[in-house]
């Protein structure tokens, strides 16, 4: 192997030049040897190998006479084989040329160990896993960027944006059979005995030992939203659960179309990331009830009021009051959180595609639009807080302060005539009394939270501050 592959290419270039003089002189003896080439061949091969090993110092130490003869033979053999090697080198070049063609393929992604573009076997684990599309799919960052870019243009042509939806407490509420309380026991009864409203939205999943209640209005919500958005499901639940829920929400498989991302697909534990959503971040809106999981994408997030239907879900979040199921009621269909947020989404969508915008569609950022729309909610309000923050606490850093500012209100620590609302936990403080005297609104901090969830300034009367704590 070494003889055919290496010696014709490398060794003659050094040894043949070194021995050019000897060769001329010894040609006769070489031609003497030539009549018996067949018998000599093995010897020659051996010698060629030896020569290769000692390329550097062979002139000095060897028995030169002996060497010369051998070398001549090798030389002749090599000269003969040169014709062959040039052709085989040609082949080599072609092969390397072909492989360099393949090198042009940047291997944009790997699926099942094969490059998606050239079909080459690839075993490296680079890139981002998109296991929700195919269990063995990984894409390189460049490819993701390319796909996002292409997809965004396509989507904007259809006047759509991306919408990422959480499942639990946002679109539905689930409970294990085990956790169903006695008061909720009627839910486990036969379907015919259920109230009409529940018949269509309560599901019993015997295979998963679970009951699932869809949030009121969810079907209308999905239907309307699908005209404005390309929708993803993104849940911290397990894949089997997520798919089952997707089936309940989308029996016709028209809304999500395998865009269901579950826990196992996330690249970071306990965090949801948009890195595995094939959508440009500047065009993604997120609906979720948990802010903490969206560490890097808070600006895309529309926070939802949690939907607790089952008692177990209430307990989980530390509410001791009766659950909706125990009270045999439900969120309002026309006025609930989903109906509210749908209006917000429509507003953002309208504003994003507003033709009066100066920036081109691709450069627009839905996060900015979201901010602007949010700022409308408490626009014109000037808020002063009293007895809300712990003493010694920088008011500016409190989440209520920030929330009020995000909603477009101005916050202040000083009382002056321009103040419109005094937010207080206690009607007995000086500022509270001032508010009552001056005819300003005195409201509970829940007023701000409610405005944040409902995207609307709430009637102040419903959030009055009780004086009871003083007495």
């Amino acid at each position, binding site marked *: 192997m070494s003889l055919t592959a290496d010696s014709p290419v490398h060794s003659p270039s050094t040894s043949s030049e070194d021995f050019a003089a000897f060769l001329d002189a010894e040609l006769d003896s070489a031609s003497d040897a030539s009549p018996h080439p067949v018998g000599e061949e093995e010897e020659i091969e051996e010698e060629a190998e030896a020569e290769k090993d000692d390329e550097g110092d062979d002139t000095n130490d060897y028995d030169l006479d002996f060497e010369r003869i051998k070398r001549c033979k090798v030389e002749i053999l090599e000269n003969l084989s040169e014709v062959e090697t040039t052709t085989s080198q040609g082949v080599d070049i072609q092969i390397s040329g072909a492989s360099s063609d393949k090198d042009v393929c940047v291997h944009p992604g790997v699926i099942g160990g094969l490059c998606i573009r050239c079909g*080459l076997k690839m075993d490296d684990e680079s890139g981002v896993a998109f296991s929700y599309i195919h269990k063995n799919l990984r894409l390189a960052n460049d490819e993701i960027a390319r796909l996002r870019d292409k*997809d965004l243009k396509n989507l904007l042509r*259809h006047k759509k944006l991306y919408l990422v939806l959480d499942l639990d407490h946002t679109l539905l509420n689930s409970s294990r059979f085990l956790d169903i309380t006695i008061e909720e026991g009627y839910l486990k009864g036969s379907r015919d005995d259920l109230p009409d409203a529940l018949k269509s939205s309560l599901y019993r999943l015997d295979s998963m030992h679970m009951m699932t209640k869809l949030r009121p209005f969810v079907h209308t919500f999905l239907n309307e939203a699908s005209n404005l958005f390309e929708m993803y499901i993104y849940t911290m639940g397990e894949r089997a659960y997520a798919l089952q829920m997707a089936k309940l929400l989308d029996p016709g498989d028209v809304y999500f179309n395998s865009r269901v991302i579950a826990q196992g697909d996330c690249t970071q534990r306990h965090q949801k990331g948009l890195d595995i959503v094939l959508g440009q971040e500047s065009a993604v809106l997120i609906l979720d009830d948990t802010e903490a999981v969206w560490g890097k994408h808070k600006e895309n997030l529309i926070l939802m009021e949690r939907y607790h239907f089952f008692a177990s879900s209430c307990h989980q979040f530390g509410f001791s009051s009766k659950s909706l199921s125990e009270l045999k009621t439900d969120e309002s269909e026309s006025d609930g959180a989903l109906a509210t947020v749908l209006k917000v989404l429509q507003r953002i969508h309208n504003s994003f595609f507003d033709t009066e915008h100066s920036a081109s569609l691709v450069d627009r950022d839905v996060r900015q639009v979201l901010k602007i729309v949010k700022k409308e909610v408490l626009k014109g309000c000037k808020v002063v807080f009293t007895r809300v923050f712990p003493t010694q606490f920088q008011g500016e850093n409190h989440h209520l302060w920030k929330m009020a500012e995000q909603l477009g209100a101005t916050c202040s620590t000083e009382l002056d005539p321009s103040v419109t609302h005094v937010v207080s936990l206690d009607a007995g403080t000086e500022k509270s009394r001032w508010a009552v005297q001056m005819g300003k609104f005195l409201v509970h901090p829940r007023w701000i939270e409610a405005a944040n969830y409902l995207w609307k300034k709430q009637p102040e009367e419903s959030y009055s501050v009780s004086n009871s704590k003083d007495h």
Partner: protein
Amino acid sequence: MFFHIVLERNMQLHPRHFGRDLRDKLVSKLMKDVEGTCSGRHGFIVAITGIESVGKGLIRDGTGFVTFPVKYQCVVFRPFKGEILEAVVSMVNKMGFFAEAGPVQIFVSNHLIPDDMEFQSGDVPNYTTSDGSVKIQKDSEVRLKIIGTRVDATEIFCIGTIKDDFLGVISDPGATS
């Protein structure tokens, strides 16, 4: 590509089957065990066409089960690089589409779909030419060329292309309905 080959397998048979129908039982068990499976070497075993020979049974100590070496003829299906296949599209997404040729799953990425075909999202995601004359969606039949295969013990996965002459849709369910 399909091949008709002879394979061998050791079949374990429960003693309750020993009797007149022993041979029939053996064959039906063989079919149940083997048809539809995939071996990395031969590909998918599509159907057993005949029994070549049944060797001498060997009684297992303790259990009473008997092991028969059975030689059988069968049709196997194994895709090769460069082969042209006809396949049914099973899923379309913005990455490309998945198609199935019998038990073999093939992925055609959007790099290997002709450049004039664009992805269209919606209720039925599809790839459509700019003039709308050709459409690839779920259940379309396509002719494609295999450019890479990965054969595992239980599964064969392929990468295909339709970016070549005479490849692409061969029937379009959307056009007829």
